[in-house]
């Protein structure tokens, strides 16, 4: 049942029925939204987008310290699976060449502390260099990345449920390029997709590598350690909407597990729906996404 046209308001009821925000309800596993006959979520036979998830039990130890050697192996595994290349240099050369100036845009939110781990950045930089991009042509930064001068971008976000945006992964990672971050937090952050279409940014993103080693699923705004967990995952893809949808689904399941009942990510990430339907950055429909899962499968949550 669609919502009445005379009300230009999306309510909780609309969302829970799947009558608003596209297929987000399906991705979040909302009871009653999943529809039969459209294929299984994240197992599309003819996918619009592919995402690879690699997990490793030894990626993070009991003291929450990240193992850089294991992380580098995980990245190699993910890149080989995503590109179907047997050789890691060939895999990276699919996206980057010696002529490129590569910007690695990572997330480093000093006050929130859900950072991209240095081990992930080091592994990416190392593989870029060994695949033929000169070290002097690779820059990694959160603020101040010289995006104008870059011919190619790698989007490297962390994963956190966000009090204003719903969830912050790859789409929100470009908010710093706007020069006016706060203005993008209003209206359900629905304009975030616009950041990918800024003249200096549009068309430059060749790869997305998500650090999902220690994601955050709480209400924020600051970190409560009870709401961070060692998922020990790395995701690779090229469709930001599909990648963020996978992360959304995992975080929603973790919230439900934590509370022992449905604890909806709130507000629902409208920015993810508009990134699909307004800005056409990719697909948020789980039935059009093929997720390849590799490695450690305990509490995979998807």
């Amino acid at each position, binding site marked *: 049942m669609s919502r009445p046209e005379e009300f230009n308001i999306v309510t909780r009821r609309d969302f829970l029925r799947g009558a608003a925000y596209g297929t987000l309800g399906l991705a979040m596993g909302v009871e009653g939204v999943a529809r039969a006959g459209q294929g299984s979520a994240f197992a599309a036979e003819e996918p619009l987008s592919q995402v690879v998830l690699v997990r490793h039990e030894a990626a993070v130890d009991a003291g929450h310290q990240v193992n850089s050697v294991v992380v580098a192996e995980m990245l190699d595994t993910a890149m080989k699976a995503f590109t179907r290349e047997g050789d890691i240099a060939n895999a990276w050369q699919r996206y980057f060449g010696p002529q490129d100036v590569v910007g690695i845009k990572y997330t480093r939110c000093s006050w929130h502390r859900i950072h991209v781990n240095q081990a992930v950045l080091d592994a990416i930089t190392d593989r870029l260099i060994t695949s033929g991009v000169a070290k002097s042509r690779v820059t990694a930064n959160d603020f101040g990345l010289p995006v104008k001068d870059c011919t190619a971008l790698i989007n490297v976000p962390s994963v956190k449920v966000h009090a204003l945006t719903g969830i912050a992964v790859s789409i929100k990672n470009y908010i710093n390029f706007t020069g006016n971050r706060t203005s993008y937090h209003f209206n359900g952050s629905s304009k975030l997709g616009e950041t990918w279409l800024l003249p200096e940014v549009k068309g430059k993103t060749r790869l997305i590598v998500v650090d999902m080693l220690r994601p955050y699923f709480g209400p924020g705004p*600051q970190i409560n350690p009870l709401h961070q967990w060692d998922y020990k995952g790395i995701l690779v893809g090229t469709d930001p909407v599909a990648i963020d949808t996978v992360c959304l689904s995992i975080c929603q399941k973790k919230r439900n597990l934590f509370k022992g009942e449905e604890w909806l990510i709130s507000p629902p990430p409208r920015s993810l729906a508009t990134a699909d339907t307004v800005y056409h950055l990719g697909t948020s429909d789980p039935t059009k996404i093929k997720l390849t899962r590799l490695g450690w499968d305990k509490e995979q949550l998807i």
Partner: protein
Amino acid sequence: MLRLPQDVLGWKTDGPDKVVTRQTIFDYMDGGGEIYLAYDFQRLLAREYARPGAPRIVAEVYQMASSGDAYGIFTHDTDGQPVSVGQMALYSAGLLRFWKNRFFVRLQAEDETPEVKTALMALGKQVASGIPQEGKKPSLLMGLPPQDLIESSIHYFHTLVSLNIHYFLADSNLLNLNSSTEAILARYQQDRDRPRLLIVRYTGPSDAKAAFEQFSKVYLRESPTGNAVFGKLEKEQFAGGRREERALLLVFEAGSRESAEKLVDLAASRMKGVAP
């Protein structure tokens, strides 16, 4: 009057203090300042402590405009173990939060160790003792019927940004919440059902009436009978409520119309004794 000690159990002040105002809150926490401003945040003092070979500690003292708002921001995240510091406190794996009077305090360590936990508790008690008086909780809390109430589920707030974090109702301001409105959201455990009660108090009856009519029309898609409206929604759940003078008493996710009406009746009865 924001105070922090210079040292605690071997941890000493390390680096300059930060003083954050309403104007600079977004520099301190972009993407998070909205939450504090929604509770009439005034000022913040932040200090870091270090001890060789031990995790660092960040202490933050938030001064809000009222004790009600300090209590409110404390209820933003209610996950943690209750401990005895200030007027109410929660501890969770290296994070101690408490409120007292107009102050909300967060003490967070990089990692949790037994020594860190001891230091956080000592620091918390020292900071709390430096705040001379206790403050009043919001009087609106008295409107919550105590039977079957899940204490840890209580959230006190003013505006849409807070409601949408705790319970997304709509992407627009359906209840016309603003900095002058007061709201409480809480859950109840009634056998298998866990209904939510939302009490909103407006500055005047006309504001409450307008919000009630909008809620009835847009959310329930029902016409109120007098000052009350209830409806059966998705998942065999019931929602609805009543307007009482300048307050709305709304129930969501009730297992039956009768239980929804009963919870609203109980709240209405208690609201008669709530101070203005």
